[in-house]
């Protein structure tokens, strides 16, 4: 599954951190500067993409608080 996140709103660091945290559920990589993400599912997980996006937002929030 490939999906895009707008770089103007999402930080690459937060996406990479999220990929690390999601490694048990899926494998993924940032394909290019536009933050195109490819996720390989390890199991059939519903709403993985949406959960991934929420998690990235959460990471960005936490970083802004630190």
């Amino acid at each position, binding site marked *: 599954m490939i999906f895009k996140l*707008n770089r103007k709103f999402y930080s690459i660091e937060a996406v990479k951190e999220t990929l690390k945290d999601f490694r048990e559920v899926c494998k993924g990589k940032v394909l290019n500067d536009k933050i195109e993400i490819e996720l390989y599912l390890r199991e059939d997980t519903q709403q993985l993409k949406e*959960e991934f996006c*929420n998690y990235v937002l*959460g990471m*960005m*929030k936490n970083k802004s608080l630190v």
Partner: protein
Amino acid sequence: MQLGKNKLTINEEKGYVLIYVNPKIYPLDVIYSAAYVFLDRAYILLDGDPKKEIIVELRLKEKTEGKGKGKELEKLGREFGNELLNYADYKQRAEKTKEIKQLLLQRALLTNDSSLKESEETVGFDNSSEELEEDGSYLEDPEGIAIPWEEKYGSKEVKSKKKVKKK
């Protein structure tokens, strides 16, 4: 279905609501703050152009079927709008009271700064009261003026009682 002069678009089939936000009215940090509030209720996706128009996609986490779905999505979108207004107001107030907050914080930090207390002593502030306390001479009464009012001007009964007590 489009609402609020095309600022809210609901797609019942796919189960999402799109909110088109003007960044001149609601800056990006306000949009982030509003989005964080909805993290546990909805799936959020941000897109668009931060200078022209920001598109917020909200998907309900809890699946609702039938006619209720559209209403739920509309409610979600409207609540997001309210939250935007809430944070825009908060930001505006925070900017207005920024200076006074800084002043209060500085005052609080200076009051409890021990290094400043030391420097005050070295600069030679008036420490006469502390010296007097250490000296203990203020307790002496060579002219006999430290007599309680009751003893000096009180009724005879009081005086006599005290004399009895002294005996």
